[in-house]
Protein backbone atom coordinates (compact mmCIF):
# COMPACT_ATOMS: atom_id res chain seq x y z
CA UNK A 1 0.00 0.00 0.00
CA UNK A 2 2.81 2.37 0.95
CA UNK A 3 4.66 1.49 -2.24
CA UNK A 4 1.60 2.21 -4.35
CA UNK A 5 1.10 5.55 -2.68
CA UNK A 6 4.75 6.46 -3.16
CA UNK A 7 4.74 5.38 -6.82
CA UNK A 8 1.59 7.38 -7.45
CA UNK A 9 3.17 10.41 -5.78
CA UNK A 10 6.32 10.17 -7.90
CA UNK A 11 4.28 9.71 -11.09
CA UNK A 12 2.11 12.70 -10.22
CA UNK A 13 5.06 14.95 -9.39
CA UNK A 14 6.99 14.05 -12.54
CA UNK A 15 3.86 14.43 -14.64
CA UNK A 16 3.08 17.86 -13.20
CA UNK A 17 6.68 18.99 -13.65
CA UNK A 18 6.47 18.02 -17.30
CA UNK A 19 3.36 20.10 -18.02
CA UNK A 20 4.33 23.06 -15.83
CA UNK A 21 8.05 23.59 -15.24
CA UNK A 22 9.21 21.94 -18.45
CA UNK A 23 6.70 23.83 -20.55
CA UNK A 24 9.06 26.77 -20.00
CA UNK A 25 12.40 25.14 -19.22
CA UNK A 26 13.62 24.12 -22.65
CA UNK A 27 16.90 23.79 -24.45
CA UNK A 28 16.73 25.37 -27.88
CA UNK A 29 12.94 25.16 -27.71
CA UNK A 30 12.85 21.47 -26.78
CA UNK A 31 11.56 20.06 -23.49
CA UNK A 32 12.30 16.61 -22.02
CA UNK A 33 9.71 13.87 -22.38
CA UNK A 34 9.53 12.81 -18.75
CA UNK A 35 6.38 10.65 -18.97
CA UNK A 36 8.19 8.48 -21.49
CA UNK A 37 11.26 8.27 -19.27
CA UNK A 38 9.08 7.52 -16.27
CA UNK A 39 7.29 4.67 -18.06
CA UNK A 40 10.63 3.19 -19.06
CA UNK A 41 12.28 3.48 -15.63
CA UNK A 42 9.29 2.17 -13.69
CA UNK A 43 9.26 -0.94 -15.85
CA UNK A 44 12.54 -1.97 -14.21
CA UNK A 45 10.74 -2.41 -10.90
CA UNK A 46 7.41 -3.87 -11.93
CA UNK A 47 8.39 -6.28 -14.67
CA UNK A 48 7.60 -6.28 -18.35
CA UNK A 49 3.91 -7.24 -18.15
CA UNK A 50 2.80 -4.69 -15.61
CA UNK A 51 4.99 -2.02 -17.17
CA UNK A 52 2.68 -2.05 -20.19
CA UNK A 53 -0.29 -1.17 -17.97
CA UNK A 54 1.59 1.57 -16.15
CA UNK A 55 3.05 2.92 -19.40
CA UNK A 56 -0.42 3.02 -20.90
CA UNK A 57 -1.83 4.91 -17.90
CA UNK A 58 0.99 7.47 -17.88
CA UNK A 59 0.80 7.96 -21.64
CA UNK A 60 -2.97 8.28 -21.57
CA UNK A 61 -2.77 10.95 -18.87
CA UNK A 62 -0.16 12.76 -20.95
CA UNK A 63 -2.46 12.63 -23.99
CA UNK A 64 -5.28 14.07 -21.91
CA UNK A 65 -3.13 16.94 -20.68
CA UNK A 66 -1.53 17.85 -24.00
CA UNK A 67 -4.45 17.51 -26.36
CA UNK A 68 -2.44 15.19 -28.63
CA UNK A 69 -4.45 12.49 -30.42
CA UNK A 70 -5.84 10.44 -27.54
CA UNK A 71 -4.06 7.10 -27.31
CA UNK A 72 -0.91 8.11 -29.17
CA UNK A 73 1.36 8.69 -26.16
CA UNK A 74 -0.40 5.80 -24.40
CA UNK A 75 0.59 3.50 -27.25
CA UNK A 76 4.17 4.77 -27.33
CA UNK A 77 4.73 4.69 -23.55
CA UNK A 78 3.50 1.15 -23.13
CA UNK A 79 5.51 -0.09 -26.11
CA UNK A 80 8.67 1.69 -24.87
CA UNK A 81 8.27 0.39 -21.31
CA UNK A 82 7.99 -3.26 -22.29
CA UNK A 83 11.49 -3.77 -23.78
CA UNK A 84 13.09 -2.06 -20.82
CA UNK A 85 11.18 -4.30 -18.45
CA UNK A 86 12.35 -7.36 -20.39
CA UNK A 87 15.93 -6.12 -20.67
CA UNK A 88 16.25 -5.20 -17.01
CA UNK A 89 14.99 -8.66 -15.99
CA UNK A 90 17.56 -10.40 -18.17
CA UNK A 91 20.45 -8.03 -17.57
CA UNK A 92 20.28 -8.21 -13.82
CA UNK A 93 23.99 -7.78 -13.31
CA UNK A 94 24.64 -5.23 -15.96
CA UNK A 95 26.17 -1.93 -15.03
CA UNK A 96 23.91 1.02 -14.23
CA UNK A 97 25.42 2.79 -17.22
CA UNK A 98 24.07 0.15 -19.59
CA UNK A 99 20.50 0.58 -18.39
CA UNK A 100 20.95 4.33 -18.32
CA UNK A 101 21.97 4.31 -21.97
CA UNK A 102 19.15 1.92 -22.79
CA UNK A 103 16.67 4.32 -21.19
CA UNK A 104 18.06 7.06 -23.47
CA UNK A 105 17.78 4.81 -26.49
CA UNK A 106 14.16 3.95 -25.67
CA UNK A 107 13.41 7.63 -25.08
CA UNK A 108 14.71 8.43 -28.55
CA UNK A 109 12.84 5.46 -30.01
CA UNK A 110 9.64 6.48 -28.21
CA UNK A 111 9.78 10.04 -29.52
CA UNK A 112 10.43 8.83 -33.06
CA UNK A 113 7.65 6.27 -32.65
CA UNK A 114 5.26 8.96 -31.48
CA UNK A 115 5.95 11.17 -34.50
CA UNK A 116 5.85 8.30 -36.98
CA UNK A 117 2.63 6.84 -35.53
CA UNK A 118 1.13 10.34 -35.58
CA UNK A 119 2.14 10.78 -39.22
CA UNK A 120 0.55 7.42 -40.06
CA UNK A 121 -2.79 8.71 -38.81
CA UNK A 122 -2.50 11.96 -40.71
CA UNK A 123 -0.50 14.22 -38.40
CA UNK A 124 2.47 14.62 -40.73
CA UNK A 125 3.32 17.91 -39.03
CA UNK A 126 4.71 15.87 -36.11
CA UNK A 127 7.63 14.81 -38.29
CA UNK A 128 8.80 18.38 -38.82
CA UNK A 129 12.06 19.09 -37.01
CA UNK A 130 11.95 15.59 -35.53
CA UNK A 131 15.73 15.09 -35.54
CA UNK A 132 16.23 18.25 -33.52
CA UNK A 133 13.54 17.25 -31.00
CA UNK A 134 14.81 13.67 -30.69
CA UNK A 135 18.43 14.73 -30.14
CA UNK A 136 17.76 17.36 -27.48
CA UNK A 137 14.88 15.59 -25.70
CA UNK A 138 16.96 12.41 -25.45
CA UNK A 139 19.91 14.27 -23.94
CA UNK A 140 17.49 16.06 -21.61
CA UNK A 141 15.95 12.73 -20.58
CA UNK A 142 19.39 11.21 -20.00
CA UNK A 143 20.39 14.16 -17.82
CA UNK A 144 17.21 13.89 -15.75
CA UNK A 145 17.23 10.12 -15.66
CA UNK A 146 19.29 9.80 -12.43
CA UNK A 147 16.89 12.15 -10.60
CA UNK A 148 13.75 10.40 -11.82
CA UNK A 149 15.37 7.06 -11.14
CA UNK A 150 16.18 8.10 -7.59
CA UNK A 151 12.53 9.06 -7.05
CA UNK A 152 11.38 5.71 -8.37
CA UNK A 153 13.90 3.84 -6.22
CA UNK A 154 12.57 5.73 -3.21
CA UNK A 155 9.01 4.75 -4.16
CA UNK A 156 9.89 1.07 -4.40
CA UNK A 157 12.22 1.05 -1.43
CA UNK A 158 9.38 0.09 0.91
CA UNK A 159 8.96 -3.31 -0.64
CA UNK A 160 9.39 -3.30 -4.39
CA UNK A 161 12.30 -4.70 -6.32
CA UNK A 162 15.34 -2.47 -6.29
CA UNK A 163 18.02 -2.12 -8.87
CA UNK A 164 20.44 0.66 -9.59
CA UNK A 165 20.42 2.66 -12.78
Amino acid at each position, binding site marked *: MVTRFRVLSVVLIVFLLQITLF*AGVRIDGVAP*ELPLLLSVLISMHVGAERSIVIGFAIGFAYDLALG*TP*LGLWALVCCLAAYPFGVASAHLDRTSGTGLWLLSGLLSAGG*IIGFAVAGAMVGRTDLLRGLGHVVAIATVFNLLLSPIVSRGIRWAFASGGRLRTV
Partner: protein
Amino acid sequence: MLVLTAITFLTLDLRGFGPLTSLQQGARDVLSPVRTRADSIFSPITDRFDSFNGNDELKRDNEALRKELEDLKGQALRDEADAANYRKLRGELGLLDDLAIPSVIGRVSYNVPGNFAPNTVEIDRGSSSGLKPNQPVITQAGLVGHLVHVDRDRSTVRLLSHPDSNVAVYIGEQYQMLARGGNGTFLIDAVPSLEADRIPRDNSLQGELVTTAGGPLYPKDIVVGRVATVIPSGEQVTVRIELSVDLSALDFVTVLLYEPPS
Protein backbone atom coordinates in the same frame (compact mmCIF):
# COMPACT_ATOMS: atom_id res chain seq x y z
CA MET B 1 -4.93 -5.75 -25.40
CA LEU B 2 -3.78 -2.33 -24.22
CA VAL B 3 -2.13 -1.66 -27.55
CA LEU B 4 -5.45 -2.38 -29.24
CA THR B 5 -7.20 -0.14 -26.70
CA ALA B 6 -4.77 2.69 -27.50
CA ILE B 7 -5.33 2.22 -31.23
CA THR B 8 -9.11 2.21 -30.67
CA PHE B 9 -8.90 5.45 -28.68
CA LEU B 10 -6.73 6.93 -31.39
CA THR B 11 -9.17 5.98 -34.13
CA LEU B 12 -12.17 7.29 -32.21
CA ASP B 13 -10.38 10.54 -31.34
CA LEU B 14 -9.33 11.18 -34.92
CA ARG B 15 -12.91 10.62 -36.01
CA GLY B 16 -13.98 13.35 -33.59
CA PHE B 17 -15.76 11.09 -31.09
CA GLY B 18 -17.46 13.62 -28.81
CA PRO B 19 -17.08 11.96 -25.37
CA LEU B 20 -13.30 11.62 -25.84
CA THR B 21 -13.00 15.27 -26.82
CA SER B 22 -15.01 16.23 -23.73
CA LEU B 23 -12.82 13.98 -21.58
CA GLN B 24 -9.68 15.63 -22.91
CA GLN B 25 -11.14 19.10 -22.42
CA GLY B 26 -12.29 18.21 -18.91
CA ALA B 27 -8.79 17.00 -18.00
CA ARG B 28 -7.23 20.20 -19.28
CA ASP B 29 -9.81 22.24 -17.33
CA VAL B 30 -8.81 20.40 -14.16
CA LEU B 31 -5.11 20.96 -14.83
CA SER B 32 -5.49 24.58 -15.90
CA PRO B 33 -5.49 26.13 -12.38
CA VAL B 34 -2.52 23.94 -11.46
CA ARG B 35 -0.64 25.16 -14.51
CA THR B 36 -1.52 28.79 -13.81
CA ARG B 37 -0.30 28.48 -10.22
CA ALA B 38 2.82 26.59 -11.28
CA ASP B 39 3.60 29.21 -13.94
CA SER B 40 3.86 31.87 -11.26
CA ILE B 41 5.91 29.60 -8.96
CA PHE B 42 8.34 28.52 -11.67
CA SER B 43 8.56 31.87 -13.45
CA PRO B 44 12.00 32.73 -11.92
CA ILE B 45 13.37 29.47 -13.34
CA THR B 46 11.66 29.71 -16.71
CA ASP B 47 12.75 33.35 -17.04
CA ARG B 48 16.34 32.26 -16.40
CA PHE B 49 16.02 29.63 -19.09
CA ASP B 50 14.51 32.21 -21.42
CA SER B 51 17.61 34.26 -20.80
CA PHE B 52 19.78 31.18 -21.39
CA ASN B 53 18.01 30.67 -24.69
CA GLY B 54 18.68 34.28 -25.68
CA ASN B 55 15.33 35.72 -24.65
CA ASP B 56 16.69 38.29 -22.23
CA GLU B 57 15.12 41.50 -21.06
CA LEU B 58 16.70 43.51 -23.81
CA LYS B 59 14.92 41.28 -26.25
CA ARG B 60 11.63 41.92 -24.47
CA ASP B 61 12.21 45.67 -24.77
CA ASN B 62 12.91 45.17 -28.44
CA GLU B 63 9.67 43.22 -28.70
CA ALA B 64 7.74 46.17 -27.29
CA LEU B 65 9.30 48.44 -29.92
CA ARG B 66 8.68 45.86 -32.61
CA LYS B 67 5.04 45.67 -31.52
CA GLU B 68 4.74 49.43 -31.86
CA LEU B 69 6.25 49.23 -35.31
CA GLU B 70 3.89 46.41 -36.22
CA ASP B 71 0.91 48.43 -35.03
CA LEU B 72 1.93 51.29 -37.30
CA LYS B 73 2.55 48.92 -40.18
CA GLY B 74 -0.83 47.31 -39.60
CA GLN B 75 -2.48 50.72 -39.49
CA ALA B 76 -0.95 51.63 -42.82
CA LEU B 77 -2.11 48.35 -44.33
CA ARG B 78 -5.61 48.78 -42.92
CA ASP B 79 -5.80 52.28 -44.34
CA GLU B 80 -4.86 50.90 -47.71
CA ALA B 81 -7.45 48.14 -47.39
CA ASP B 82 -10.13 50.66 -46.44
CA ALA B 83 -9.25 52.84 -49.41
CA ALA B 84 -9.54 49.82 -51.69
CA ASN B 85 -12.90 48.98 -50.21
CA TYR B 86 -14.20 52.47 -50.80
CA ARG B 87 -12.98 52.39 -54.36
CA LYS B 88 -14.96 49.26 -54.93
CA LEU B 89 -18.06 50.94 -53.50
CA ARG B 90 -19.01 47.98 -51.41
CA GLY B 91 -21.23 50.12 -49.31
CA GLU B 92 -21.31 50.51 -45.60
CA LEU B 93 -22.67 47.05 -44.84
CA GLY B 94 -20.06 45.36 -46.97
CA LEU B 95 -17.22 47.08 -45.14
CA LEU B 96 -16.88 44.73 -42.25
CA ASP B 97 -14.74 46.47 -39.68
CA ASP B 98 -13.17 44.14 -37.11
CA LEU B 99 -13.94 46.71 -34.42
CA ALA B 100 -17.66 46.14 -35.02
CA ILE B 101 -17.27 42.56 -33.83
CA PRO B 102 -17.14 42.01 -30.06
CA SER B 103 -13.70 40.91 -29.00
CA VAL B 104 -11.67 39.59 -26.08
CA ILE B 105 -8.02 40.41 -25.46
CA GLY B 106 -5.71 37.64 -24.28
CA ARG B 107 -2.07 37.31 -23.34
CA VAL B 108 0.03 34.92 -25.37
CA SER B 109 2.21 32.16 -23.96
CA TYR B 110 4.60 30.18 -26.12
CA ASN B 111 5.07 27.67 -23.30
CA VAL B 112 2.79 24.97 -24.65
CA PRO B 113 3.64 21.69 -22.87
CA GLY B 114 5.36 19.00 -24.90
CA ASN B 115 7.41 19.10 -28.06
CA PHE B 116 4.77 18.44 -30.66
CA ALA B 117 2.70 21.59 -30.84
CA PRO B 118 4.59 23.65 -33.43
CA ASN B 119 2.90 26.75 -34.81
CA THR B 120 0.52 26.95 -31.87
CA VAL B 121 0.42 29.26 -28.86
CA GLU B 122 -1.79 29.49 -25.81
CA ILE B 123 -3.75 32.48 -24.54
CA ASP B 124 -5.02 33.04 -21.03
CA ARG B 125 -8.68 33.30 -22.00
CA GLY B 126 -11.15 30.49 -22.53
CA SER B 127 -14.81 29.56 -22.64
CA SER B 128 -15.40 31.49 -19.41
CA SER B 129 -14.65 34.64 -21.44
CA GLY B 130 -17.04 33.62 -24.21
CA LEU B 131 -14.50 32.07 -26.54
CA LYS B 132 -15.36 29.18 -28.84
CA PRO B 133 -13.30 27.03 -31.21
CA ASN B 134 -12.61 28.47 -34.68
CA GLN B 135 -12.87 32.13 -33.66
CA PRO B 136 -10.33 34.34 -35.42
CA VAL B 137 -7.35 35.81 -33.59
CA ILE B 138 -5.79 39.09 -34.69
CA THR B 139 -3.44 41.84 -33.57
CA GLN B 140 -3.34 45.47 -34.63
CA ALA B 141 -0.99 44.38 -37.40
CA GLY B 142 -3.29 41.74 -38.87
CA LEU B 143 -4.45 38.14 -38.80
CA VAL B 144 -2.72 35.70 -36.42
CA GLY B 145 -4.79 32.49 -36.73
CA HIS B 146 -7.78 30.89 -35.08
CA LEU B 147 -8.70 29.03 -31.90
CA VAL B 148 -8.51 25.25 -32.05
CA HIS B 149 -8.97 24.16 -28.43
CA VAL B 150 -10.95 26.21 -25.96
CA ASP B 151 -10.78 25.18 -22.30
CA ARG B 152 -12.36 27.04 -19.42
CA ASP B 153 -9.49 29.49 -18.81
CA ARG B 154 -7.09 28.79 -21.65
CA SER B 155 -7.24 28.43 -25.38
CA THR B 156 -4.90 27.13 -28.03
CA VAL B 157 -4.36 29.26 -31.12
CA ARG B 158 -3.35 27.68 -34.40
CA LEU B 159 -1.08 30.19 -36.11
CA LEU B 160 -1.28 30.99 -39.80
CA SER B 161 2.11 29.32 -40.25
CA HIS B 162 0.59 25.95 -39.25
CA PRO B 163 0.41 23.60 -42.24
CA ASP B 164 -3.31 23.02 -41.58
CA SER B 165 -4.19 26.72 -41.71
CA ASN B 166 -6.31 27.63 -44.71
CA VAL B 167 -7.55 31.13 -45.43
CA ALA B 168 -9.57 32.45 -48.33
CA VAL B 169 -7.89 35.72 -49.29
CA TYR B 170 -8.12 38.58 -51.73
CA ILE B 171 -4.90 39.65 -53.37
CA GLY B 172 -5.27 43.26 -54.29
CA GLU B 173 -8.76 43.91 -55.53
CA GLN B 174 -9.08 41.21 -58.16
CA TYR B 175 -7.89 37.79 -57.17
CA GLN B 176 -9.57 35.49 -54.69
CA MET B 177 -7.33 32.61 -53.65
CA LEU B 178 -6.97 29.94 -51.01
CA ALA B 179 -3.88 30.45 -48.90
CA ARG B 180 -2.38 27.81 -46.65
CA GLY B 181 0.25 27.71 -43.95
CA GLY B 182 3.86 27.07 -44.84
CA ASN B 183 6.33 24.67 -43.32
CA GLY B 184 6.72 26.44 -40.02
CA THR B 185 7.77 29.61 -41.77
CA PHE B 186 6.05 32.93 -41.54
CA LEU B 187 4.95 32.89 -45.12
CA ILE B 188 1.90 31.40 -46.74
CA ASP B 189 1.97 29.50 -49.97
CA ALA B 190 -1.10 30.37 -51.94
CA VAL B 191 -2.36 28.14 -54.68
CA PRO B 192 -4.64 29.74 -57.23
CA SER B 193 -8.05 28.20 -57.29
CA LEU B 194 -10.92 29.75 -59.16
CA GLU B 195 -9.01 32.35 -61.09
CA ALA B 196 -5.76 30.50 -61.74
CA ASP B 197 -5.74 31.43 -65.40
CA ARG B 198 -5.93 35.11 -64.65
CA ILE B 199 -3.06 35.29 -62.18
CA PRO B 200 -0.21 37.20 -63.82
CA ARG B 201 2.94 35.08 -64.02
CA ASP B 202 5.31 37.99 -63.70
CA ASN B 203 6.01 39.82 -60.47
CA SER B 204 3.37 42.49 -61.02
CA LEU B 205 1.50 41.31 -57.91
CA GLN B 206 4.54 41.84 -55.73
CA GLY B 207 3.74 44.13 -52.81
CA GLU B 208 -0.04 43.81 -53.28
CA LEU B 209 -2.10 43.84 -50.12
CA VAL B 210 -3.58 40.49 -49.02
CA THR B 211 -6.80 40.50 -46.97
CA THR B 212 -9.27 37.85 -45.86
CA ALA B 213 -12.10 37.17 -48.26
CA GLY B 214 -14.58 36.17 -45.56
CA GLY B 215 -16.04 32.77 -44.82
CA PRO B 216 -16.81 30.40 -41.98
CA LEU B 217 -13.58 31.10 -40.07
CA TYR B 218 -12.58 34.67 -40.78
CA PRO B 219 -14.55 37.85 -41.44
CA LYS B 220 -13.79 39.90 -44.53
CA ASP B 221 -11.05 42.49 -44.87
CA ILE B 222 -8.66 41.48 -42.11
CA VAL B 223 -5.12 42.25 -43.24
CA VAL B 224 -3.03 39.12 -43.81
CA GLY B 225 0.10 40.59 -45.36
CA ARG B 226 1.63 41.46 -48.72
CA VAL B 227 2.66 39.43 -51.73
CA ALA B 228 6.37 38.65 -51.48
CA THR B 229 6.98 36.73 -54.70
CA VAL B 230 5.08 34.99 -57.49
CA ILE B 231 6.51 31.64 -58.56
CA PRO B 232 5.04 30.08 -61.73
CA SER B 233 5.34 26.30 -61.89
CA GLY B 234 3.80 24.64 -64.93
CA GLU B 235 0.12 25.52 -65.03
CA GLN B 236 0.08 26.46 -61.39
CA VAL B 237 1.22 29.66 -59.78
CA THR B 238 2.43 29.85 -56.21
CA VAL B 239 2.17 33.19 -54.53
CA ARG B 240 4.23 33.59 -51.40
CA ILE B 241 2.80 36.02 -48.91
CA GLU B 242 4.72 37.76 -46.19
CA LEU B 243 2.52 37.96 -43.12
CA SER B 244 2.01 41.37 -41.55
CA VAL B 245 2.28 39.90 -38.05
CA ASP B 246 5.51 38.56 -36.60
CA LEU B 247 4.19 35.27 -35.24
CA SER B 248 7.34 34.64 -33.21
CA ALA B 249 6.92 37.71 -31.03
CA LEU B 250 3.27 37.85 -30.01
CA ASP B 251 2.37 39.35 -26.65
CA PHE B 252 -1.29 40.33 -26.59
CA VAL B 253 -3.85 39.25 -29.17
CA THR B 254 -7.50 39.97 -29.82
CA VAL B 255 -10.00 37.17 -30.30
CA LEU B 256 -12.96 38.21 -32.44
CA LEU B 257 -16.22 36.69 -31.19
CA TYR B 258 -17.14 36.19 -34.80
CA GLU B 259 -20.31 34.39 -35.81
CA PRO B 260 -20.07 33.41 -39.46
CA PRO B 261 -23.01 34.37 -41.67
CA SER B 262 -25.47 31.50 -41.94
